[in-house]
C-alpha cells in the first residue's frame, strides 16, 4: 500500500461494514472487491466487517487508519456519529467514501441509492395498480434507521396524491425475511388487503401468500433475485421490483480510485432507482440469474462508474486474493 509517493502506482483500500452475514452487504463488498480488481491500480482490499455499532465502526476506521490504507469505503451506521473520525482520516490524506448511506463529514465522498425515491416510485406503481383505491400494507424496515425514514417519507409523498388509498397496516420487518414472512402470514389471513409495499422483504411475503393459500395481491419489493424469480415464474403474481443495487459499493470503489488517481469525481453521487414491473417480463428475464442466491441483485453494472464484469462480482475476489 501507500500511495503517498508519486511513482507508487498501487493503492490499498479499506472497507468498514457493520453487518455481517447480510446478503445485500456481502454483495456490496463483492462489488467493491470486483471494482478494485478491475481498476488494476489496487493491490489490496482490507476488510473490516463484524456486527457492531457506531463505536465499533469508529474502531474499525481508526484501525484502518493505523494500517495506513489510502482510501476507506464506509457503509456508515449513522449520519453524524462518524464525522470526527472521518475528518481525522481525511486530515491524514486518506480518501473517504460513504456508500449506501450519507455522512455529513466535511470532504467525504458520498454514493447512495435515493431512498426517498425508492419509497415513492414503488408506492406510486402499487397505487396505480390498485386504480387509486384500496387498503395497502406498508412493511417497513427498522424504525429509526435513516434509510427506513427516507423510504417512509417517499411512501407518504406518494400516498398524498392517492386519496383513495388507505394504509390498513404498518409493520416493521427489521429487514428480516423471517419476521417479514410471519407478519405477512398474519396480515394476509386476516384478509382485506389489496396491495403490499415492502422495504425489500419481498420473497418471503410471496411465500406467505402460498402458505396461506390466499389470492395474490400486487406486491412491491426490491431487486432481489428470489423476488424476480417469483415475478417471472409464480402463477398470478403481479408486482414490481424497485432497484436498490448493492453495486453501489462498486460505485464507491470507483469514486475512491478516481480520487486516488487524481481525477476529480463528484462529491455526491445519488442513483435513482428503476422500477421493473411483472408486465415487463423481458427486463425481468434480463435481471434474473437462476444460479444466484435469493438475496442477490443482478443489477450490477452501473454506468459510468463500474468497469467490472458481472461475473467478477459473483466471483467476489479482490486484488491479491486467489
Amino acid at each position, binding site marked *: 500500500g501507500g500511495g503517498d509517493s508519486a511513482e507508487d502506482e498501487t493503492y490499498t483500500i479499506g472497507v468498514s461494514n457493520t453487518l455481517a452475514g447480510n446478503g445485500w452487504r456481502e454483495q456490496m463488498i463483492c462489488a467493491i472487491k470486483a471494482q478494485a480488481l478491475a481498476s488494476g491500480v489496487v493491490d489490496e482490499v482490507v*476488510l473490516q*466487517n463484524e456486527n457492531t455499532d457506531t463505536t465499533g465502526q*469508529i474502531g474499525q476506521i481508526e484501525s484502518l487508519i493505523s494500517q495506513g490504507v489510502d482510501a476507506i469505503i464506509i457503509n456508515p451506521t449513522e449520519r453524524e456519529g462518524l464525522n470526527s473520525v472521518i475528518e481525522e482520516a481525511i486530515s491524514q490524506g486518506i480518501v473517504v467514501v460513504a456508500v449506501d448511506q450519507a455522512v455529513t463529514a466535511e470532504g467525504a465522498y458520498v454514493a447512495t441509492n435515493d431512498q426517498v425515491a425508492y419509497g415513492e416510485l414503488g408506492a406510486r406503481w402499487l397505487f396505480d395498480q390498485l386504480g387509486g383505491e384500496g387498503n395497502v400494507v406498508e412493511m417497513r424496515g427498522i*424504525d*429509526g434507521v435513516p434509510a427506513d425514514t427516507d423510504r417512509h417519507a417517499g411512501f407518504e409523498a406518494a400516498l398524498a396524491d392517492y386519496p383513495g388509498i388507505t394504509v390498513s397496516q404498518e409493520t416493521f420487518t427489521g429487514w428480516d425475511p423471517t419476521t417479514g414472512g410471519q407478519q405477512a402470514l398474519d396480515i394476509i389471513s386476516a384478509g382485506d388487503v389489496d396491495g403490499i409495499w415492502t422495504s425489500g422483504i419481498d420473497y418471503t411475503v410471496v411465500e406467505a401468500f402460498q402458505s396461506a393459500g390466499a389470492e395474490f395481491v400486487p406486491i412491491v419489493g426490491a431487486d432481489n433475485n428470489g423476488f424476480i424469480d417469483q415475478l417471472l415464474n409464480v402463477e398470478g403474481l403481479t408486482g414490481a421490483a424497485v432497484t436498490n443495487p448493492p453495486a453501489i459499493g462498486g460505485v464507491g470503489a470507483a469514486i475512491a480510485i478516481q480520487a486516488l488517481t487524481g481525477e476529480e469525481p463528484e462529491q455526491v453521487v445519488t442513483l435513482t432507482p428503476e422500477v421493473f414491473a411483472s408486465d415487463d417480463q423481458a427486463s425481468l428475464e434480463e435481471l434474473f440469474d437462476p444460479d444466484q442466491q435469493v438475496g442477490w441483485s443482478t443489477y450490477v453494472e452501473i454506468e459510468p462508474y463500474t468497469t467490472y464484469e458481472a461475473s467478477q462480482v459473483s466471483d467476489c475476489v479482490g486484488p491479491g486474493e486467489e
Partner: protein
Amino acid sequence: MTAETAGRSTRFDWSTWLRRRGWTAGVWLLLLLMILWYSALIPKFGGFQIASISKNSLPLVYLAIGQAVIVIAGGIDLSVGAMLILSNSIAAQLMFEQPFGVTLAIAVLVILIGAVINGVVGWIITVSRVPDIVVTLATSFSLSGVALLVLPSPGGGTSEGFRAMFTGSTTGSGSNFWPSLVAIAIPMALAAWWMKNTRTGLSLYATGSSPTAAYLSGVRTARAKIVSYAVGGGFSALAGLSALAITGSGESRAATGSLFTLRSVAAIVLGGVALTGGIGSVVGAAAAGIILFTLSPILSAMGIDPNSAQVVQGVLIVVVMMVAGIIELRRQRAG
C-alpha cells in the same frame, strides 16, 4: 488437613496468590501481549493507536464491570445492552447543545436513572422469585423499546468537554490517550475496592457464593441482590454515556443492545467471573472487555479476512477457556 496444617502461610505465598489472582493476572498479561503484538503488526504505533483501543473499548469495559458485579452476586443481567442504549438515548436528547457543566450534571442524573431502574429490576427478581435471566430478558425488550421512544432516530449530542473527558479529544478521536485510560482505571479500581473491602461489597460475594449460608449468617440476601443490580445498572448507564462521548450523537437500535449484552457475558467469563456467582473480580472482567475489543483490529492487521477472522476469534476464545479450564483441573487434582 487439620488446624495445625491449615495454619501455614500467614506470610506471602506465591501458590496462594496464583490460585486467587492467577486468572486476573493472566488476562491482563494476555491483553498486554496482544497490544505488543498489534504494535508490531502495524506501520506505526503511537498515541493515536493506544487512544483508539482504550477509548473505543470503554463501553464494553463498563458493561463488563457492571455485569461482573451482578453475576458475582449470583444474578445475571441480559438487559445491560438495552440499558446502554437507553441511557445513551436519554443523554443524547438531554445533552444536545448544552454546556459542559450541564452535561456533567445530566451524566450524573442518567447514571442515577440507570441505577434506580435496575434496582427495581433487582427488587422484582427478589419478590417475584422469577429467575434473573428471565426477568432481565423481558426488561431488555422493554428498555430498548423505551429507548426508541426517547430517541426515535439517531441524533442528539453532547458537549465537547464531555467528549474529551472520556476520549481525550473534543472530537472523540485523537492521540491523547490518558483521559480514556483514567476513565477505565478509576471506575474499575473503585468497584474492585468496594466489592472486596466493604461489608456491602462482601455481602454481594456472599449472596452469590452461597445464598443459604449468607442468609443463615445474617446477610440480607434480598438487599444484596438489589444493590448488585443497582450498581450494575449504573455501570450500564456509564457505558451508554461513554458511547455518546465517542460518537457525539445518540443511537437507539435494539440490535446494538443485544450485541453488547452477549459480549458483556463473554467478557466476564473470559475475565474469570464464575456464572454460578461468588467467584471472580471486576478487574479481570475489565481486561477481558478490552481483549474482546482488540481482537478484530489485530486479526485484520494480520491480513485475515473478516469471515476467517470471525472463525479464528471464536476458536481463540474457546481455546483460551479450554486451556484455563485444564490448568484449573490440574490444580484441583494436584496435591
